[in-house]
């Protein structure tokens, strides 16, 4: 059975000890395996419209094996990679069902609050109120992303906080992490997570709130420590 799973996964282990547990989570596929294509539009294009590269890719897909699609990959038109990432970060001990329901309740909460404001507002202000929870979510995350970060560099026995540029991934990660920790730690014990999160996201959308403040504090620290910027070697 171990040898069958190994052959199915396409990995080529150096030695096959009988009845050893095969690693599944970070299993290495044989490099010949191709990524699965989930988007419906790519299959609906007629043959003539494809470019040379796409035609070659299609012929390759007919011969090569394809990797198994991970459960997070969805062909739904409503799926959003940022929302999935945020849901994964909110998840505790693998309870994706709970994390996903919390996320959908948060989005619904945001929508309800904004719609109530929209219906009560006078006509001229109605266009300024944003009711789409996805737009609010993305804008709030963008507002929370720091531009520059700090890194600990040890030189001559002392550790310095050195201002350092951040990659896009790191910025997104920091924004999401700050939002979640802010909601988990600094709120009243009895408030539900969707309620707390929707409040924080709306504040961040308007460039207010504790998360934006934390970002500004980080920027100020980086500005204060700019004398040590030359310690960075990358």
């Amino acid at each position, binding site marked *: 059975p171990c040898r069958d799973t190994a052959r199915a996964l396409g990995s080529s282990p150096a030695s096959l000890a009988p009845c050893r547990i095969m690693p599944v989570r970070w299993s290495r596929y044989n490099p010949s395996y191709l990524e699965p294509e989930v988007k419906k539009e790519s299959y609906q294009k007629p043959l003539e419209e494809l470019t040379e590269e796409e035609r070659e890719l299609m012929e390759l897909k007919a011969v090569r094996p394809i990797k198994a699609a991970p459960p997070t990959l969805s062909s739904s038109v409503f799926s959003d990679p940022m929302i999935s990432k945020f849901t994964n970060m909110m998840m505790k001990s693998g309870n994706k069902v709970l994390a996903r329901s919390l996320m959908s309740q948060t989005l619904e909460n945001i929508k309800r609050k904004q719609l109530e404001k929209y*219906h009560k507002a006078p006509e001229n202000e109605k266009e300024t109120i944003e009711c789409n929870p996805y737009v609010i979510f993305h804008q709030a995350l963008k507002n929370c992303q720091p531009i520059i970060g700090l890194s600990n560099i040890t030189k001559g026995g002392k550790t310095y906080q050195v201002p350092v540029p951040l990659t896009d991934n790191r910025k997104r990660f920091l924004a999401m992490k700050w939002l979640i920790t802010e909601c988990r730690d600094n709120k009243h014990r009895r408030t539900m997570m969707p309620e707390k999160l929707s409040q924080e996201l709306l504040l961040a959308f308007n460039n207010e709130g504790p998360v934006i403040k934390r970002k500004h504090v980080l920027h100020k620290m980086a500005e204060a420590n700019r004398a040590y910027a030359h310690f960075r070697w990358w």
Partner: protein
Amino acid sequence: MLRNLRGFICHSLKLERGCALHTAHRDGLSSVSSPERPRAVFHTSESDPAKHTEQHEGRLYNIPLEEVNAVFPHGLPHRFQQQIRTFNEARVMVRRPALELLGYLKGSNLRHPAVRYVIYGERGTGKTMTLCHVVHYCSRQGWLVLHIPDAHLWVKNCKELLQSSYNKDRLDQPLQASVWLKNFKASNEHFLQEIKTQKKYMWGKRESTEEGRPLREVVEQGLARARSACDAVGVLLKELKLQSHRGSFQLLVAVDGVNALWGRTTLRKEDKSPVCPEELTLVHNLRKMLRNDWSGGAIVTTLSQTGSLFKPSSAYTPQELLGKEGFDALDPFVPIPVPNYSPREFESCYSYYLERKWLQHEKARTEDGKAELQFLSGSNPRQLDRLAGPL
């Protein structure tokens, strides 16, 4: 100019004006909706359920908010109440099971014993909303509505269980009884003033209600003294049952989750022995009310698996949910199945959400998004509502 003329001809052919009165109300104009907006087709301006016919099937009708507070102090599902608060209006869809029930009620002879109707269906198909539609119709027609919003609340999660003073074997639930009495009083004020008691009732050693006093005093006695709230409810039900055949008022008994009355309870007595439903005063009196030995009204009930105790989640038929005892007690009844949305009703609901800006996602407006919503929800109203929430 020509477009408006075409609009008027279309509307007269449709036999009723499907005009979006709510947007007109918002803009302060009194104009008929223009024909360029096909979404307005799925609304109807007919807010009297008595005039709803098959033409209105699949359309949404508006209940004015003051009427909602007067007629439904405690009947509507929680999600629907949230929707009313968000959209600032109460729109109920006219569906075939409700039209069927209304037809039966209109044609029923009130001198015959009360007919029992049981609304059943799978989870989230709209049984409670059908019941609310019927309750709205009856209250518009001037019937006395005895609406028990969820019978499951009486057989579980009860903090206080007192021994009944009237009958030592039974148990009282003062909290649930007083909450229900308060809501009943809010919806049926004028009836309580007119109907008089026919017997003298003693509440304990000192207090009593004489013969010929209005029923309002019985209700107020129940609200003032929590201990006698259950007995007040029992007296109320008994009086209504005795006097309904006279014809001065028509009585509608609307019970949601009637399978709770014949199931099991999660309550325990002080010696940790389980409580049977018939040992609860409220359940005992309600069971007596649901027998068809009185005339001058109708009994409309709903089965519900969602709040039920010790029943599998796939059970939805009357046989499964009521059990042998309940089925024999309710037999004979008229079963009314409630299916999922038909394609037309789905269209109507989807257009309503789009129009009230509930579906905010850009892709939700496309054909792909609509097809995906239909597939994922399986045209089930509750699933559609849950799915459309975050979108």
